[in-house]
């Protein structure tokens, strides 16, 4: 790799990171699985890379009441393999396990992935289904936004210049909930052509609660509330699911590229949504 010349900084505090990032030509390095390939091609040429690995408080996964708090610099591999995550938020662990390949999962971080906002990233489907929130910090303070507000558009987030993602919070999964993330993998890059996450809670044999998140279908991941409404109150059998997912892509401007046409993506969204829901229903107690 022959990138343009750059400085490499390893701040040891958030304050130091903010100071370094006040330079408009500095860029955060939070795993680098999207940034480094762009630098290799010289499509990205930051003058300074600010590696957040040494900043205390950005790592770690902890449980706080009914909330699981995941530091921005937690790697996909940590999420995939953490017994705590697997138990308290299995959907997040499943999403992490579906990202790229082993090397990507060892380096890439949840905060880096979110801030990059790739429209085919795996996390957003699950984070929408989990109604996750994102804690953002800047030199002037902190704020927390919902995932729906955080992911604005293709490669566009609610982050203002100078702000950093510091933590992602998800609810601890309800007792007996069934979850699943199903992904159609693009064989070249490993990104999702379409990925659908489902959370189902059953009560007396009926779906009492459904949350569905979709990634890869369009320029931005979204929560399929229409599908959720159609599922809730049904027994979740094949015909219920078929009816519920039929309109998952209605009004969605589906992506169209050499890997999948818009029509095929729309179709895959229905197929993978049904698969995710079937799996989640079967896992729900």
């Amino acid at each position, binding site marked *: 790799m022959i990138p343009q010349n750059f400085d490499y900084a390893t701040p040891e505090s958030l304050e130091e990171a903010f100071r370094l990032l006040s330079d408009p030509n500095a860029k955060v390095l939070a795993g680098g699985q999207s940034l480094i390939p762009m630098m290799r091609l010289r499509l990205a040429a930051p003058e300074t890379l600010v590696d957040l690995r040494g900043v205390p408080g950005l790592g770690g996964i902890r449980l706080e009441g009914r909330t699981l708090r995941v530091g921005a610099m937690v790697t996909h591999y940590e999420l995939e393999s953490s017994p705590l995550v697997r138990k308290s938020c299995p959907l997040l662990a499943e999403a992490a396990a579906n990202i790229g390949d082993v090397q990507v999962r060892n380096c890439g971080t949840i905060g880096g992935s979110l801030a990059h906002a790739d429209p085919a990233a795996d996390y957003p489907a699950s984070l929408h289904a989990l109604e996750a929130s994102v804690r953002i910090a800047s030199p002037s303070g902190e704020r927390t936004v919902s995932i729906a507000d955080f992911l604005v558009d293709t490669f566009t987030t609610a982050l203002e210049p100078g702000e950093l993602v510091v933590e992602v919070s998800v609810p601890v999964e309800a007792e007996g909930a069934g979850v699943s993330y199903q992904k159609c993998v693009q064989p*070249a890059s490993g990104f999702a052509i379409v990925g659908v996450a489902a959370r189902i809670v059953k009560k007396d044999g009926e779906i009492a609660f459904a949350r569905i998140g979709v990634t890869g279908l369009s320029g931005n991941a979204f929560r399929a509330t229409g599908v959720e409404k159609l599922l809730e109150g049904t027994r979740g059998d094949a015909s219920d699911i078929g009816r519920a997912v039929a309109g998952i892509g209605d009004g969605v401007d589906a992506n169209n590229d050499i890997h999948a046409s818009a029509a095929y993506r729309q179709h895959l969204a229905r197929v993978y949504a049904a698969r995710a829901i079937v799996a989640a229903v079967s896992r729900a107690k």
Partner: protein
Amino acid sequence: MATTTITKTGTLVGKRLKRKEDPRLITGTATYTDDIQLPGMNYASILRSPYAAAKIRGIDISKALEHPGVVAVYTGADVKDVGPVPCGASLPGLRVPHHHILAQDRTYFVGHPVAVVVAADRYIARDALDLVEVDWDPLPAVADPEKAIEAGAPAVHPEWPDNIAFNFHQENGEVDKVFAEAEVVVKQRIISQRLIPCPMETRGVVADYRGGDKTLTIYSSSQIPHLMRNLVAQMLGIADNHLRVVAPEVGGGFGSKLNVYAEEALMGFIAMKTGKPVKWIETRRENFLTTIHGRGHVDYFELAAKKDGTILAMKLKLIQDLGSYHQLLTPAIPTLSVLMMPGIYNFKHIRADIVGVFTNCVPTDAYRGAGRPEATHGIERMVDVLAAELNMDPAEIRLKNFVPNDAFPYATATGLTYDSGNYAAPLHKALEIVDYKSLRAEQKKARAEGRLMGVGISTYGEICAMGPSPATPAGGWESASVRIEPSGKVTVMTGIKPQGQGEETTFSQIVADELGVEMDDVTVLHGDTMVVQYGIGTFGSRATAIGGTALYFALQELKKKVKKFGAMILESDDVSFSGGQCICNRTGRTADLSQIAGASYRAMKLPPDTDPGLVATNFWEPPNFTFPFGAHICVTEVDRDTGAVEIKRYVAVDDCGRIINPMIVEGQVQGGVVQGLGQALYEHGIYDESGQLVTGEFMDYAIPKATMVPWIETDHTVTPSPVNPLGVKGVGEAGTIGASPSIVNSVVDALSPLGVRHLDMPLTPESLWKILEGARA
């Protein structure tokens, strides 16, 4: 590394032995081109055309030259007297564009080299590349070979507005008559798409000129160091004995390094101009854009047959996408397809017409199988199309048409002589392994359940051990020299150039068996024209069949001399040589190899009419090619909802003649099958209408990863080749050749209830989904 301690003569050939090469490869201690560091070395970075076709109105290098650390910048004008990038193939009437090492006033494909910056390090060189200013005038381009030969298409080379580089015709028998009278004729257009070879190690060149010695050394990741020496010497106008080419460790070639590229001569030119060594390492992006691609066929097949399934005749119109220039073998590759178009079937009437077409793309050339996968894919698909037409079982129709065992040596309709074969044997074995009858019963059941299960068979034949010299552009022999050192250790110098095929191991096995030494006592040297006598290289599954045979004959010669020295030491006229020692057959006294070697070099006394030393060299000219064959069976299921193909089972039964190391053969077959699977399911080098390569990185070009590959069951039948004393045929390309038709035949079989007769590669889920949608509608 103690691989084995067996030293008894004749026991290592045929054994599963771990490769001697692997420890250095898997511990990262091998020396590749990029590992070579020379004092005072500069680095080169190459500016390439972003347009498929463009006029260069001007190039301003002044800013780049001013950039600190830049040593020199060269453009087309500086190198116009360097000889053209060579095309080694000759065909009647072939149009050969003059292929300058840097573009002159026009570029012909995206990636075409335009200027080169030489600087103190590779970062500076790359930085300064952005300072070279080119005034471009983009021109219309054409990337599709069928569109390129339509009237009014943009001319790739203005001097040849029809875009046709050559027409080639071959015919045997009474094709028109047989077709006119045939009971059945089937036709099919079959595409073998453009593929990108993607070796793990990209290309790279280091050039070092020693003015005092007037000697240029070029290190290059190459399959053919000796041929490169001859050709690059010509390009640079220097004597071949003033050019040393070294191919260090080569991290995969697959045919893409069976070539001479602009960069070898360019780096040589720079080293001579600047008087300093220079290094250029190809980036992955450059590898996609500028290293040769493979395949690129549009084939129109017609098959004439009797109602009972007997194949009578074949017609083929082959449109070959050549790209913008001829690389070393570009125009010759489709002629190999024609040679192998009858496959292993017994019919005599053929007609083939090739149209070689220029497009504004990177040239196509040899890629694993080189012409034979296209031919095999064609004939194996056509046999299935015919079977479907006649409602016959694909195994049955094949068994009916195989060249019979008593017909060898068999003269084919295309002028070849198949050396040996028992074509039914691997098919029977494969059918037995998969339990074909039960498999068809299972398929019937699956269909009743609405599942799309398919069984695909391919019975391939291929042409290997390239080849007798009259049939090749630059000599088809191979050389070996064996030297028993004074210590009794053995050094082999071979003209082949392994890039993963494992000949350091297999050749050591042959030497150990013949001389009774340990494998570890054998060193196999290759790839350095200053160390190794002239040779040809590794490609066309030739290295063991020809290079191994040269080694075998050199060893026989050497053994005679060893015995002479043994007889002298033992003072006997009745000695035998076995297990690494000479034995007096009368007294039982022995002299071991180190004793004999010591005496031969010390030369206090010499046997009558015998020179000192223990060295023997052989240049072996093969009397024929070899013709391996095999049967692959693939079981698939297509997901009705998504069109995704799942390979449920893959069985490969290959016959590559006698096997020297079964583990290496299995590795070659498995790797080959994976590359064929890549073509069948994933890979496609796509140029858009304007000539931009849209699959120009691994982000868009899918090669199979370990997790995408099914378990591949391998087995063998052994039909020795009579062409060489080892009885070996070659196996480097077999897996790739057998794989794509077995997979496609399987998926076509899966979708046959929907009326599907043919599918073009790659079988992407979306392309199959569209068919499923059409059937639902």
